């Protein structure tokens, strides 16, 4: 178990370094740099050269990368070129916003998807069909479409704010205000995810219910509800748990679309801004933060899986 955890940890570290390095090099390889983007074509050549010199953009890519990596290993992630502030100051707030969104979405998805999946998988008839049909519709509405649809409804009814994270003058205090703004973005990511979890849980439940031990337990006179919600739930949850590792990536992708559509100030929109401005240090920082999310998400889900299912440790 310890060896397994250590190997996973090493992979996570590799993931973070590789992803932020790749982002740095890719952003640097792109034609044009921060100076040419920010100063425009009318700037005097000397001004441009001086700015490049000052920001270290005139050195070869490999040298720049080496310097950046060496500094990053000492937890100095460089200064953002466009905001002229250390990257490390800019990222935590945005990362926390994305984390809030992603965690709310996955909690929502689990709370809706798993119970409905158990219901749909353990019985036949109208209820089960209705749940399956609803899931099919939601599965066909990835976060981009769901957020547009929900924002459309919100704009028409005026029940929810249609952009941002905070009001200028919150009516019920800052905390409730954020929750109020969170509803639509979180639902936009959470609902399609709930549909996916529901389908998987329904499949797993119907397989679990068909197993001989369920019939045996029922024959001993244990109530049906208890068998389904306790005895059959355990093995079926095992297979659904393994999907959570894959969901982390999906969650970040979905969060990106929603952050852009609903103007949620998260990591995705920060990275998009940074890419547009060719702000290489900020790009690398965002990518690294995203990779940390990903790594910790997969790590948690893998370790959870190893705890639930001994077979997973052997891989």
């Amino acid at each position: 178990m310890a060896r397994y955890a250590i190997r996973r940890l090493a992979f996570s570290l590799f993931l973070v370094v590789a992803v932020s390095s790749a982002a740095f090099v890719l952003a640097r390889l792109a034609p044009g740099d921060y100076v040419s983007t920010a100063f425009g074509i009318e700037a005097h050549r000397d001004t441009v050269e001086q700015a490049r010199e000052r920001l270290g953009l005139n050195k070869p890519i490999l040298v720049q990368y080496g310097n950046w990596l060496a500094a990053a290993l000492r937890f100095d992630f460089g200064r953002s070129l466009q905001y002229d502030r250390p990257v490390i100051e800019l990222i935590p707030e945005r990362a926390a916003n994305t984390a809030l969104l992603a965690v709310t979405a996955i909690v929502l998805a689990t709370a809706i998807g798993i119970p409905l999946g158990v219901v749909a998988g353990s019985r036949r008839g109208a209820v089960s069909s209705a749940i399956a049909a609803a899931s099919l519709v939601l599965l066909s509405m990835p976060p981009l479409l769901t957020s547009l649809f929900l924002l459309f409804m919100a704009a028409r009814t005026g029940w929810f704010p249609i952009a941002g994270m905070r009001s200028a003058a919150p009516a019920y205090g800052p905390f409730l205000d954020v929750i109020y703004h969170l509803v639509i973005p979180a639902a936009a990511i959470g609902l399609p995810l709930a549909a996916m979890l529901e389908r998987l849980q329904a499949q797993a439940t119907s397989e679990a219910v068909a197993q001989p031990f369920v019939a045996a337990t029922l024959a001993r006179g244990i109530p049906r509800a208890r068998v389904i919600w306790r005895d059959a739930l355990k093995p079926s949850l095992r297979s659904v748990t393994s999907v959570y590792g894959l969901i982390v990536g999906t969650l970040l992708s979905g969060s990106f679309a929603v952050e852009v559509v609903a103007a949620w100030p998260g990591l995705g929109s920060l990275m998009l801004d940074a890419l547009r401005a060719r702000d290489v240090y900020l790009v690398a920082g965002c990518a690294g933060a995203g990779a940390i999310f990903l790594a910790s998400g997969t790590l948690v889900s893998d370790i959870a899986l190893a705890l639930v299912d001994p077979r997973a440790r052997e891989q």
Partner: protein
Amino acid sequence: MTGAAGADRARVVGGAIVVLSIAAALLAPVLGPHGPGDQFPGLLNAPPTRPHLAGDDGSWHRPFIYRWRLVDRLEQRYEEDRSARVPLHWFAGGHLASSSDDRTAPLMLLGADSFGRDVWSRLLFGARASLGIAIVAALGSVLLGATIGGFAGYAGGTADDVLMRGTDFIMVLPAMYVVLALRSVLPLVLAPTAVFLLLTGIFAIIGAPFMARGVRAIVRTERDLDYSTAARALGASGARVVFRHLLPAARGFIGVEMTLLVPAFVVAEATLSYIGLGFPDPIASWGTMLHDASNVRVFVDFPWLLSPALAMFAVVLGLNLTLQGRATGVESMR
């Protein structure tokens, strides 16, 4: 959907939606009365024109429309000008239906966008870009993924290990971020053909690992079956065994996986174009159309501009329906 009959019916409905969408894309110039770039400067954000049969006095006529009269230029509100009927023409100028007075009273079944362009025509032409990119990219994923998976599964050993680690790595990454990072290597604004090639290339790379893993697993099991041993014993080369004998065994899997990748790519194109990194503006694609619709007034006053979202939903739903009773759809979200 319960039971095999329900799943069958769902597959038929889904298949019909998909076939109709592709047909609509192919027949865009016929079904749409205008070109994707035709502008009507006097009809910015005009609402959909409604074909009528009955006139104001209750008399019946051949299908006709009314002219839009601008009521408020600032708020872009329009009113039907009931004083004159504009009859529709059928099969005129190669269009299925069009207005007899296209200059002042164009037929715009889904209204006009903020440049005064016909949304219905753009939706049809946009289907070409959006579906085209998704289908070509899915085919690219099949090619790339089947080659990698076939090779890894057949060769085994170190090559297998290395390739599968690589695919695992790509699969773990959030697809949208990878697309974004790769996309930004090239200039932000590119010619439409360059965008098409670039996006199909990137999408193919993102989709290939899903294909490769499944194909590898199938090839690995099939490799040790008698028929493949027999082919090898008869002197068939490794490549021939893989492509002629083993990959056909993965046909079902490849079909399902493609059906999952196409909607994912349609949405990915839309997301990229929405943020302005996809097709450049005058080109119609569902993503660029949504990009034009990205402001609050659209939700309240010009909801017809959101029709690309509906079209996208229909296509994704259609493709998902064709998979009823087969797959669970884990990858459809990526």
